[in-house]
């Protein structure tokens, strides 16, 4: 496998919901500077934004790595949260374990993971209950 031409790393702060999404905003700015198409930029930033929100809501933060390859972009979101017990169930639109507080903030309606899948060309979830979750998304550039 070829090496990425660029790698962006972010630590996602899980303490403050109001600051969630900062890494995605930063990625959006960086990708614009690389001259990628608006559609690709939007898909990458939305997929990452939903992931970031998820990490803040469920896992008290984590890390995000965005790797730019010649013909695709890979987003790796890793947390040490509670893990996902049933991934198939979590992937269903409308299924959510989020708190009422999260819902009152406009999220937690069970659309996060389905949206991440919707905007990526490939998505892989590895999760161990009590250990954490890693979501890897790939978005093709070409």
């Amino acid at each position, binding site marked *: 496998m070829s090496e990425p031409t660029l790698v962006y790393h972010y630590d996602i702060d899980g303490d403050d*919901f*109001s*600051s*969630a*999404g900062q890494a*995605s*905003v930063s990625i*959006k700015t960086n990708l614009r500077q690389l001259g990628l198409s*608006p559609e690709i930029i*939007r898909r990458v*930033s*939305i997929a990452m*934004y*939903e992931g970031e*929100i998820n990490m803040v809501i469920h896992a008290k933060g984590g890390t995000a790595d965005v790797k730019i390859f010649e013909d695709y972009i890979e987003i790796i979101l890793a947390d040490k949260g509670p893990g996902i017990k049933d991934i198939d169930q979590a992937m269903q639109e409308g299924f959510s374990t989020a708190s009422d507080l999260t819902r009152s*903030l*406009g*999220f*937690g*309606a*069970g*659309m*996060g993971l*389905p*949206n991440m899948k*919707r905007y990526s060309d490939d998505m892989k979830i590895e999760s161990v209950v009590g250990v954490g979750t890693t979501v890897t998304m790939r978005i093709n550039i070409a």
Partner: protein
Amino acid sequence: MIIEDLKKYLDAEILCCEENLKRPIYSACGCDLMSDVLAYVKDQGVLLTGLVNPQVVRTAMMMDMVCIVFVRSKAPTDEMLKLAKDNGIVIMRTSMRLYEACGILYSNGLTGNKN
């Protein structure tokens, strides 16, 4: 329609980025659920919402929206206004309810996305 027309139709108060009022807009969406905005909205320039927190502005940024209308006289925080200002997103506020505001804009030709 341009953003300035929204101000007129909704009797709205501009809170940020007045310099961008001449920007054109072709469609809009009214929603309090940001995940739905992220899921279903495509190429819509305006978000009308009654939800007030910084994620509303970030969601609009992710979707390349140019204007946010807060309904029911909701007041955005200074943090939200700064975020919008840094990104050139016009923020306005109307006393109308979401349904009413959307209906007025729709009947004046600002339709939703047909897809």
